[in-house]
């Protein structure tokens, strides 16, 4: 556990201080500023916003960032899985008394932390942009839900947690794909194409709930809008993705020639 903790601590520090994270923050900021400007100029026509205030700003933009967040997560997963192998730095880590299961578990935890980091980044940047352009506002309005103050913030954070969980499941799929590619770019592009194609699962109403892409788009919304049984099924679907991809990924990693 201690070894997992120290590897995860190192990865967390790396993800917080890397240039890549700064670029992602910059791109999110540009995206949110564009959305705020479009709302000011054209109303709801060209943006996901229906209400112009900082309280509602983050929660509306979670779903809208589907492509961005998915691609950033796929790149991060490819970076920690593929790049370590291709550059040979994985050998240095495994030369220490770190077993392959320990290493693998630390990667899984890092992927979860990165999805939480991306979500928090989006929420914080959204609040900042919302405050700058619209002010705090009187109420948080999101679909049929209204709230305000601390309750609104907690609601947003709960949405964010659900959002992060669904993207963690996607990250596990990305990790599985990364086990079979030899370059970061290939892994990122495969996941990017899957993201674009995965949106078409929405046309298949009978099976869409079982597609991770549907959960990435709607899980954080459905926990408030859909019945309890539906949400339990969604949680089980996401957990299944995490477990199945985790197991297959580990079986592939266990036998992998790490170019020693």
């Amino acid at each position, binding site marked *: 556990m201690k070894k997992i903790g120290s590897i995860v601590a190192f990865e967390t520090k790396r993800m917080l201080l890397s240039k890549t994270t700064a*670029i992602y923050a910059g791109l999110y900021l540009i995206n949110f500023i564009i959305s705020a400007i479009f709302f000011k100029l054209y109303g709801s026509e060209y943006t996901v916003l229906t209400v112009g205030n900082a309280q509602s700003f983050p929660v509306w933009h979670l779903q809208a960032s589907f492509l961005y967040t998915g691609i950033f997560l796929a790149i991060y997963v490819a*970076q920690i899985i593929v790049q370590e192998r291709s550059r040979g730095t994985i050998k240095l880590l495994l030369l220490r008394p770190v077993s392959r299961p320990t290493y693998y578990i630390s990667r899984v935890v890092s992927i979860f932390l990165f999805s939480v980091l991306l979500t928090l980044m989006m929420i914080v940047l959204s609040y900042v942009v919302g405050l700058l352009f619209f002010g705090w506002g009187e109420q948080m309005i999101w679909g049929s839900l209204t709230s305000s103050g601390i309750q609104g913030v907690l609601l947003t954070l709960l949405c964010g947690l659900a959002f992060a969980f669904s993207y963690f499941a996607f990250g596990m799929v990305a990790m599985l794909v990364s086990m079979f590619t030899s370059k970061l770019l290939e892994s990122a592009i495969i996941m990017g194409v899957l993201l674009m194609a995965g949106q078409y699962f929405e046309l298949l109403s009978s099976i869409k709930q079982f597609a991770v892409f549907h959960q990435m788009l709607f899980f954080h919304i459905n926990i408030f809008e859909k019945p309890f049984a539906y949400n339990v099924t969604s949680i089980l679907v996401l957990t299944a993705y995490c477990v199945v991809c985790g197991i297959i990924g580990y079986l592939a990693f266990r036998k992998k020639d790490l170019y020693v």
Partner: protein
Amino acid sequence: MLKQLKYDFSKLVFQRKYLFILIAVSLFGILYSVLLFQKGLAGTQIVSSGLATFRPIYWLLCCYVMCDVISSDYHYKTLKIVVPYAENRAGYIVSKGISSAGISLMILLVYLLTSNMTVLILDSGHTWGLSGYSFGLLCVGAIVGIFFLESMISFCIVVTESEAATIGFSMGIVIIMFIFESVGQIAKYLPTMWLATLPSIVKTEAGIGLIVIAVFFVLSLLLCAGTIGIFRKKDLFA
């Protein structure tokens, strides 16, 4: 530079992944054209609609090709071996730019060729081309768009020296442009739309349109000059 260019094109030929991309694009062109033909669309409409659907995928493929061609030596530490082929460092970067632009343009041409050929086989009355499009202007629009994207990517590579940052940045820029495309008033002036809108811009709004394109072109030239300037002073011997 010609020696470097010959080396880069030989590499493209020998690496099968680009061949697989071209085959996949051809298959997409064929299958999508057949699908649209079955829906009853006319020949030139099939090609135009297919291009409109293919366009977002095309730009993501361009991101992949450009990042791969321009950054592979950089990030896999083979730069010290390859750079001596070039007469100078500027020649190296320009050669990488030309080879990645070449393969990007080839992807588009392969798609258009397979799409048109498929429609010609299915509908003998079809005439080559696109509905209301000039093929030459389409290529010019594509080349200018590719040049803009390439200048951004190569600048990011030499500044950040991070493969992950470069891929994230390039795909992020393309997605931002897709977001801007939702606004009709500015959509036609975006680099990602020029391969579809340049013919109409030249016909209807030549003044404004060409000024916008010129601004993007000058920006691209400045980014290229900056890239070459930074790359020439970089310590590549680490």
